[in-house]
């Protein structure tokens, strides 16, 4: 009788522990998802800013047509891109085109003094930061989730319940990806 009670007690404790781990994994996976969608939010923010920027620059530097068109094309290509790899590629082209546009703008003092242009420049600089920070945060969140899902005892049933490891966002520039070694 006592043996059965102890056995039942053990089963209850184990089930409770498993439920706890399961729930914490669900929470972490949710964090990974929202970190991922944050990247998309910021990318969209950039797509929305670009037409305004192009219009403003056109007013002062109309004969930089080629540069402006390249930006527009790169933006549209990035919007249309399907799949993570293709999109990363398109985003890189867009970043390059934007950088060139701002380099060109250096030659137009009136443009550089334009309130609207300065504001757009700040917003775009901020968006670049947001995009890279969102990616960085996604990778941190994914790493945290993966560590938890692959630690004992969660690893015993994580895959069984569909907790697949999260993929990392790969960045070409190696120095960009690595967090600095910080000694506490």
């Amino acid at each position, binding site marked *: 009788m006592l043996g059965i009670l102890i056995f039942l007690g053990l089963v209850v404790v184990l089930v409770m522990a498993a439920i706890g781990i399961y729930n914490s994994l669900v929470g972490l996976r949710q964090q990974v998802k929202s970190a991922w969608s944050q990247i998309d939010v910021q990318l969209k923010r950039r797509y929305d800013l670009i037409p305004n920027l192009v219009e403003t620059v056109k007013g002062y530097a109309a004969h930089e047509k080629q540069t402006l068109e390249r930006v527009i094309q790169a933006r549209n290509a990035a919007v249309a891109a399907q799949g993570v790899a293709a999109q990363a590629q398109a985003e890189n082209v867009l970043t390059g085109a934007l*950088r060139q546009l701002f380099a060109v703008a250096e030659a137009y003092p009136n443009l550089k003094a334009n309130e609207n242009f300065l504001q757009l420049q700040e917003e775009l600089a901020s968006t670049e930061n947001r995009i*890279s920070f969102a990616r960085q945060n996604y990778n941190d969140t994914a790493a945290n989730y993966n560590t938890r899902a692959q630690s004992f005892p969660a690893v015993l049933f994580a895959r069984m319940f569909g907790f697949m490891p999260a993929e990392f966002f790969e960045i070409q520039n190696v*120095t960009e990806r690595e967090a600095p070694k910080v000694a506490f």
Partner: protein
Amino acid sequence: MPRTFRDLIAENRRKSALLVVGFLAFFTITVYVFTLYATGADPRAGLVPTLVGLGIGVLLAFFSYQAGAGAILAMSGAKPIKKEDDPQLYNVVEELSIAAGLPLPRIYLIDDTAMNAFATGRGPRNAVVAITKGLRERLTRDELQGVLAHEMSHVRNYDIRFAMLLAVMVGLLALLADGFRRWMWWGGGRRRSSRDSGGALMAIIAIFAILFSIVAPILGKLIQLAASREREYLADASAIELTRNPEGLASALEKLGKDQEVLEVANRATQHLYIVNPFKPFETRSKGLLSTHPPLEERINRLRALEGASRRSTPVGS
């Protein structure tokens, strides 16, 4: 195994709880000793006032937790600003909140030409970052990002909760100690002379009471010291984890170090909140042994040592 910010959060939560318990214990014992002293050493007479004292202590602790951030902001003369007032400042904070995966804190400006900044609040959901006008105006974008990343690290690591409780509780204790000293000065505990029995006990309690009134502020000061120095290094390090750009914060600290101005709105209870010690000019800021902040030179050197290890590509248009 290196400590992550998740360990820091757990530690800060624990320390905050300990601080509240310690405050309550200290407060109750102090009230008990004071009542014994005032009523002429009758232990039973001391019980009821002590319970009342404990009740007041709980209320004060609750106040410190709930309204501490507001009190600190009011004391520092910080005013909330809107996005239209300073889009760039807002952008920088929004970027960092994305990097740290935190909700956007409220942003306050302190109308003072001295250069400084601090963060406070119960935790990330109730956080405020405040910066002086002097600092805001003299930093480049990268430097501003470094300073605010330092503040956001305090937010993320729950340093702000501990530091806020410390500031408000130390402030309260200092007020009480001041009040008690004044009360003794004006002839408190006069009943001493009317009693013959227990004179020795009375004397001991009197000494205790006086000691408390002296020790309370010193104790508060010591806690602040213990709390702050390591925290500043850690916040610098976590700031770089967020921005991946050690040079921004390093050159901001350099500018902060050159500032000779004293921030008038800071006081003893709030000094440990600030990114650099608000009172001392550079020589003492950089060398002070008994200081709430580590020497600035050392902080800058540590950051510059990280410089080689990481470099974020320059963003478009900057």
